[in-house]
């Protein structure tokens, strides 16, 4: 079954790569605003750089905007971008309720709006991982590893960020079918910044409260809290508890390789391909191809210690 899953994902990856190397219209002379919520994590940095590189490769001029994970900066930059009148805007991530009114204004100003991981109604196309599949596969792996029994600690700090919401909802859906698994209340809140340190100390404190055998797994919607949680488990010698998250940040992948690793699984995303694909969608749209799908999905790969090498090869990490 696992082999089939890998094979399936490999096929998807292959198709996405082929898609990306298609002839893409030029962006010569076009100014493309690349608006980032932040560039402090592996996913952001890779997706950001890929967008800049692809805009340049296609002959366009990138306008780079980075809100530094601060909502006030983000809203200000989205408001000012209307003044800049770029040929298109690509918004990466963000809490939808906060950014949507401002995305609406960008659309109202007649600037084509594209998004990454932000399924806004005002976006022409949203490039994203298939977070439904990612969330489901991750939850299934958790169920399988725990044998469908035990308590789970869940980090749910960013339910307002659509991709996190989808992954969380998929977890809850899977748990509904396995009543032996229970989410410990209250749920934990991951924070930005200091995500790793904060998750590490939250988990370290809870390990004292719950002795061996009382926690089966720790789940988070992305893998930076997972990194902190895993470090806390290693510190406390409690690697019988497994952690689950999404992104495929290199530090988490390093931990997977350890003997006695606390990392159960991480869904690896392909931020480079996501960034590249979003820019290519912009180029196609500006060249007159107006029939873009509302969403373009880039495949993910559920990564465990068993298939780490394949994942790294596929993503181009090695």
């Amino acid at each position, binding site marked *: 079954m696992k082999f089939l899953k890998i094979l399936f994902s490999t096929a998807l990856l292959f198709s996405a790569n082929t898609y990306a190397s298609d002839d893409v219209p030029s962006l010569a002379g076009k100014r493309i605003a690349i608006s980032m919520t932040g560039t402090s994590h592996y996913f952001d940095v890779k997706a950001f750089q890929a967008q800049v590189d692809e805009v340049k490769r296609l002959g366009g001029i990138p306008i780079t905007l980075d809100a530094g994970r601060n909502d006030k900066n983000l809203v200000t930059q989205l408001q000012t971008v209307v003044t800049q009148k770029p040929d298109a805007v690509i918004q990466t991530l963000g809490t939808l309720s906060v950014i949507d009114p401002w995305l609406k204004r960008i659309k109202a100003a007649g600037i084509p709006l594209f998004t990454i991981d932000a399924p806004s109604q005002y976006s022409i196309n949203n490039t994203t991982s298939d977070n439904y599949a990612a969330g489901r596969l991750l939850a299934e792996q958790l169920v399988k590893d725990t044998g469908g029994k035990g308590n789970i600690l869940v980090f749910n700090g960013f339910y307002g960020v659509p991709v996190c919401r989808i992954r969380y909802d998929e977890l809850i859906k899977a748990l509904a079918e396995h009543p032996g698994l229970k989410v410990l209340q209250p749920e934990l809140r991951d*924070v930005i910044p200091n995500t790793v340190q904060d998750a590490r100390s939250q988990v370290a404190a809870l390990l004292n409260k719950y002795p061996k055998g009382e926690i089966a797994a720790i789940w988070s919607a992305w893998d930076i809290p997972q990194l902190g949680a895993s470090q806390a488990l290693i510190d406390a010698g409690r690697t019988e508890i497994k952690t689950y998250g999404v992104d495929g940040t290199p530090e988490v992948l390093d931990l997977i390789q350890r003997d006695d690793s606390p990392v159960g699984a991480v869904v690896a995303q392909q931020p480079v391909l996501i960034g590249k694909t979003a820019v290519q969608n912009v180029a196609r749209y500006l060249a007159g191809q107006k029939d873009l799908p509302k969403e373009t999905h880039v495949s993910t790969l559920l990564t465990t210690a068993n298939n780490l090498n394949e994942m790294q090869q596929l993503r181009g990490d090695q």
Partner: protein
Amino acid sequence: MSTDLSLVGAPTLPAANRWQLKLLRHGASLAFLTILLVFAATAPNFLSPTNLSNVVAQSAILGILAFGLTLVIIGGGSNVVSGGLDLSLAANLGLSAAVYATLNNAGASAASSIALTLACGLAIGALNGLVVVGLRLPPLLATLASMNLIAGLELVLTENTVLPTDSPLLDLLSFGQWLGQPALAWVFLVVALLLTLLTQFSRYGLRLYAVGEYPEAATAAGLPVASYQFSSYLLSGLCGSLASFCSAAWFSGSTTGSGEMLLSVVAIAFLGSVFSQRLRPSITGTLLATLLVGFLVNGFQLLNISSFWVNGVQGVLILLVVASSSLLRGSV
């Protein structure tokens, strides 16, 4: 506005020194003007009316918070350690916005949501006033402690999540326009005007300055120093909750991370004094400092320069404030 310093030192200074003194006093305004001219010449669309009014609207949140801090500095004196200081302003905004979003989402009437949000800000101001004026704790530590307390209350209320909300008031603030200018810009300017009238043109304002600058003299003159200082914290708390309405409109609800605004607020309030000839805190100075920072962020984005440079420029400006204020003090 008073023009008192010229009475003290200028006549005894040689011409060259006088000229330097003038340059120091007007340096900030000149620098602001130069920055505006450079942006006007180089940044595309910088001078477009929409862009200019956007910057004013974008400055509302930080500006109103910085007004609160300015009032406290006026009343407590501008010494960073022993003078007036309110570090809880950003946390006040966070909690007030969360209170408003929670009440509004729970179906409370518009009037009661607004009143309770303002009451929340006032209560925080009263708490700060009590510990600083009543218990005589150093404002730096006292308001740092209340900041943590308030941030904790906000976490309890929001569980560190974004609380989206929508109300006619927020719609008006975020989408409303009057004479073609955005509502938030009007709110910012009207608050600035009212507070300027209060601090510069009322008996209360004159006395607040007296209490802050010469507490012993004010006491000797029979002014109730403690009451004036307490009132400055109340006003500051009120500014926190006023800013929270702007913030709730801006973010369509309450959002996390409001604490990050603190350093900008402190920087702006202290930067503001550089716009006054005597380097003393004033609402108009703070207004100009807020706009300066707003125009820097805006101009840098229009020029496609990373906004992180704004922090650097802000740092340089603050160093200039400190340097020029010590120079000025040395020259009189």
